[in-house]
């Protein structure tokens, strides 16, 4: 044991009970014979106890509210600039598979939402990426920011390859907007209704109780998704999954798993 680095690392591992019996015996002999090793061991022990003695922290109200909603879409921080985090798997999958789920903007019926959808689509037209190359997430700081729909605040924006994803919140409801170049395969939209939004073809349907809107504007596709976490989890608790092929299925299954695993009630 002539390597001092090895010695040092063994002292911490010894302290943590992470050495084999033979190695631990070596360290015990060393500690008996070396004052330097003993001093080192005591210092490492002290450092460990300092950290272990740190108290459990009470989360601030914003975090508590976020946790209670079970939602990552916390209110925008008072510092102003929205937090930019990576796209969730839900969003990634939604973009990748064009499987859309959620609740359409507004709750008063689709006809009342058409103008809102049109506004949102227009606001996002300027942020459609023009390249077809996947963009590293670190580059998103340079991406253009979409303007916010009336009454909503941008809390999350991300770019994934050819798609732009933005999330908004009005404090009660969360809305995601996916914008990407491409063509909608309308034949795949076997349920729901073909609609017109701002003169462009669109689709509005209900999937497992959730309304979804897809709009083809020019060469770009816009998908508007809103969700309320509790509603999603309630759905997850109540429905049975036969085929796990859609985003809704996976989310629902995850929610069901949560309920069963932790014995929680919706």
């Amino acid at each position, binding site marked *: 044991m002539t390597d001092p680095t090895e010695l040092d690392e063994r002292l911490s591992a010894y302290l943590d009970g992470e050495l084999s019996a033979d190695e631990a015996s070596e360290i015990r002999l060393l500690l008996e014979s070396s004052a330097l090793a003993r001093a080192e061991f005591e*210092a490492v022990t002290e450092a460990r106890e*300092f950290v272990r003695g740190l*108290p459990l922290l009470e*989360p601030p109200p914003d*975090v508590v509210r976020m946790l209670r909603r079970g939602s990552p879409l916390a209110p925008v921080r008072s510092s102003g600039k929205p937090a930019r985090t990576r796209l*969730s798997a839900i969003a990634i999958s939604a973009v990748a598979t064009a499987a859309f789920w959620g609740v359409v903007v507004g709750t008063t019926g689709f006809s009342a939402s058409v103008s809102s959808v049109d506004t949102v689509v227009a606001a996002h037209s300027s942020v459609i990426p023009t390249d077809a190359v996947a963009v590293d997430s670190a580059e998103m700081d340079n991406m253009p920011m979409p303007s916010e729909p009336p009454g909503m605040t941008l809390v999350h924006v991300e770019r994934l390859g050819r798609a732009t994803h933005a999330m908004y919140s009005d404090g009660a409801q969360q809305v995601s907007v996916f914008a990407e170049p491409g063509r909608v395969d309308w034949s795949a939209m076997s349920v729901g209704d073909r609609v017109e939004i701002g003169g462009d073809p669109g689709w509005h349907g209900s999937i497992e109780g959730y309304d979804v809107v897809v709009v083809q504007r020019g060469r770009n596709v816009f998908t508007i998704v809103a969700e309320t976490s509790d509603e999603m989890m309630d759905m997850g608790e109540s429905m049975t999954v036969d085929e796990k092929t859609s985003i809704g299925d996976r989310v629902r299954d*995850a929610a069901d798993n949560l309920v069963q695993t*932790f014995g929680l009630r*919706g």
Partner: protein
Amino acid sequence: MWDEVAQEHGAFIYTVAYRLTGNRDDAQDLVQEVLLRVRRGLKTYKPGSLHGWLSRIATNAFLDDVRRKQRQPADPLPENPERVLPKSAAADEALTQVTFPEEIQQAVTSLPEDYRAAVVLSDVVGMSYQEISEALEVPIGTVRSRIHRGRSQLREALT
């Protein structure tokens, strides 16, 4: 149901996030990211240590963010022997220090992120080296190095 999650695990999630990031705003962002990952990862959760699972998610989210921001690999293990084996403060000198949580947190925050993650998982969460190895996807020898070197630097910072 999330009320119960918040009540039962909120303080733990936030504490781990704060210990890793060292400030309230970044801790809040990290909790946000943890929630995203929890919601997508629930399907793969296997009954066991929920705190361990949450800690792994938080730590990996933290390290992913660090690496994304740096756009380069995290600080490699130092080769400078002075960092590996800092001059030892006399044990009695170190033990007489009066250290406040804020100072300790500051020292924790000053650690290279990889060391910090290993130390937090070990000494805040209470994971074994094997568990940390699996959480961080590094060999146990690397865990051993990071924990020890992290503690060594902590001791330096605090004495």
